[in-house]
């Protein structure tokens, strides 16, 4: 999918929930490619959601989870808002038009690329920082549990630990989709 399609889709998605500023709402007009990435550090919640959707390749991320992720990541890193602004700029200008370009982008722009990995990590793991197993204090912060993206691939057959998705011992039966599921061997 080319970037303008994606951004059009994203802005359709967010137009319902966001108060996007007009000067940022026409991202399919590429800026001069030589422009430096560094933007300002006034990032709106919909900017963060837009960047998150692009980085994860999902179009149904929750604004409430985004707010928690943004709060946690920006309180841990004073330059985080500027990195989000950079990422949005890079997406809009096509410097990061597709996540397949991410490795090249990261070589050129290590700072926003590091922030991008923190964003992706927060959406997948459902927390930020590094949790300590044997200490009541660490730098981790909660972002999401059931909606953490790492649980999606198995959501049809099991639920994350706490409440059972069905009857007791439901997990004894092999998933009905097992035969048709792609495995790493058949992929």
């Amino acid at each position, binding site marked *: 999918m080319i970037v303008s399609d994606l951004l059009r889709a994203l802005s359709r998605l967010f137009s319902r929930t966001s108060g996007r500023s007009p000067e940022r709402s026409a991202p399919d007009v590429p800026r001069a490619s030589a422009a430096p990435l560094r933007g300002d550090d006034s990032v709106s919640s919909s900017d963060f959601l837009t960047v998150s959707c692009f980085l994860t390749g999902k179009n149904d991320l929750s604004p409430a989870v985004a707010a928690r992720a943004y709060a946690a990541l920006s309180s841990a890193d004073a330059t985080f808002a500027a990195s989000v602004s950079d990422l949005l700029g890079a997406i809009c200008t096509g410097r990061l038009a597709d996540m397949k370009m991410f490795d090249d982008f990261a070589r050129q722009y290590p700072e926003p690329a590091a922030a991008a990995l923190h964003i992706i990590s927060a959406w997948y793991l459902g*927390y930020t*920082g590094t949790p300590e197993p*044997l*200490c*009541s204090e660490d730098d981790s912060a*909660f972002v999401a*549990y059931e909606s953490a993206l790492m649980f999606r691939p198995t959501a049809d057959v099991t639920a994350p630990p*706490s*409440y059972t998705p069905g009857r*007791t011992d439901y997990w004894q039966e092999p998933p009905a989709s097992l035969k048709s599921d792609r495995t790493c061997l058949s992929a």
Partner: protein
Amino acid sequence: MTASSYDADVVVVGSGVTGSNLAYELARKGRSVIILESGIRIPRWKIVENFRTSSRKVNRNDPYPNAPYAPNSYTPGYIENTGTFRFLPGMLRLVGGTTWHWGGSDVAVPSQ
């Protein structure tokens, strides 16, 4: 008896499996028993909710109360570890004591 005055044959300190069983057996034999517990009592659903909203699910103490007046064993400085390796057991401070570890559950292993 007023609110501030209690009397019993036996006062048990701690409501873990040791204290609870001791109190139970003594009460069955007709003794009056009081259990003193430093930690709070919280319902299971709150512990489950604490687990679900914990950012450190690798930390098995995290869903449980950890009050300044009843710190659990993962509070920095609570256990002095001087061996050649790190050893910090996950001891809890609440009504029920360390039996609550692993969510206080005993997962049934299916017969097959």
